[in-house]
């Protein structure tokens, strides 16, 4: 005890010197609304949907651990591709909703999709005033498709 209370305490003043140095340095802060940081391409920001690729196979909805994907579809007959052939039966997507208030961003749906209909986009500005508004429909999900970035180039080793 007696040794420690002696003046001066070198550690205390070294610390003060460090805080003083930090004070005169510019702060490494991004002023968010004015300056936006660009997330890394792989960032799991929001799930985008490519409606054309979706075949209403329900795999994503089944594999979702949170049960937050709601899909409805119907079968629809289409004219045969070549004249004289059998008419095709095609599943059409009526509803594709993701409840982002439940989603835990695990990425399983994107992974299990066999037809490349779901993508991760780094977009993050979609907060809502009410939790109920976080249920986004397929039109909204399609809008985000444009924000899906190109795949990053890979490390050579």
């Amino acid at each position, binding site marked *: 005890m007696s040794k420690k209370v002696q003046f001066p305490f070198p550690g205390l003043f070294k610390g003060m010197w460090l805080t003083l140095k930090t004070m005169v340095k510019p702060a490494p802060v991004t002023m968010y609304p004015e300056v936006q940081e660009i997330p890394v391409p792989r960032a799991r920001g929001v799930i985008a949907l490519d409606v054309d690729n979706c075949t209403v196979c*329900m795999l994503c*909805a*089944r594999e979702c651990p949170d*049960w937050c994907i709601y*899909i*409805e*579809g119907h079968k629809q007959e289409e004219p045969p591709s070549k004249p004289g052939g059998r008419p095709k039966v095609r*599943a059409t997507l009526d509803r594709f909703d993701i409840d982002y208030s439940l989603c835990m961003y695990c990425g399983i749906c994107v992974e299990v999709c*066999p037809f490349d209909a779901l993508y991760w986009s780094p977009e993050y500005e979609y907060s809502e005033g009410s939790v109920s508004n976080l249920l986004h429909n397929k039109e909204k999900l399609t809008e985000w498709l444009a924000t899906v970035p190109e795949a990053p180039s890979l490390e050579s080793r």
Partner: protein
Amino acid sequence: MSDSPDTTETEADVAVIDPLEGYAEALVEKVGAIGFTLEFDTVRIHVEPSRWVDTIVTANEDLELFSWLSAIDWSKDVEVGDPVDDVDALEERFEVLCRLSSVQNGDGAIFVATLSKDNPSIASLMHEIPGAEWHEREAHEMFGIDFEGNTHLIPLYLPDDFVGNPLLKSYPLLSREVKPNPGDVDVEPMPAVEAEAETPAEVTSEEAAGDA
């Protein structure tokens, strides 16, 4: 059970397993247990419930670190998740598990005592190993197992007025019952799914629904 056909054992694995078997045998000898099971590098020592505290305390001399204590509910009445492999052959019981580890090397074993469902009760380790208190409280509220001698057996996680033992297999998981599985609707199974999976897609969906 230990030589499960699914595990492709390389030579390296065999080399690892052999000393473990010797280790387990020696441990059974030392603590005076019934026997052991060795699977996937995990040694389980089967202990008579009446000698539970003695056994653990003896083993604790070498395996200094008390790691955890918990239980398994082997039940035919399964509300959530997959049922056991062979339901008819299953003998309904609780298993109390206690893991001790050595801090010198990788040694360690899980001590297992089997308790009947009618009277799930076992002596408490609390006075010999004080760290067991919280684990016993957890097992008590989750499974309803009584630890005789534990003076502080009040709920750890759950509210005081909670009724039921949530980790019992017969206890329903409400979150899976209050709403239907959105993936469980009628659509045609896709050819790709049928082709690649051994199990048909319909089964997949029902299982994913958590047997709600």
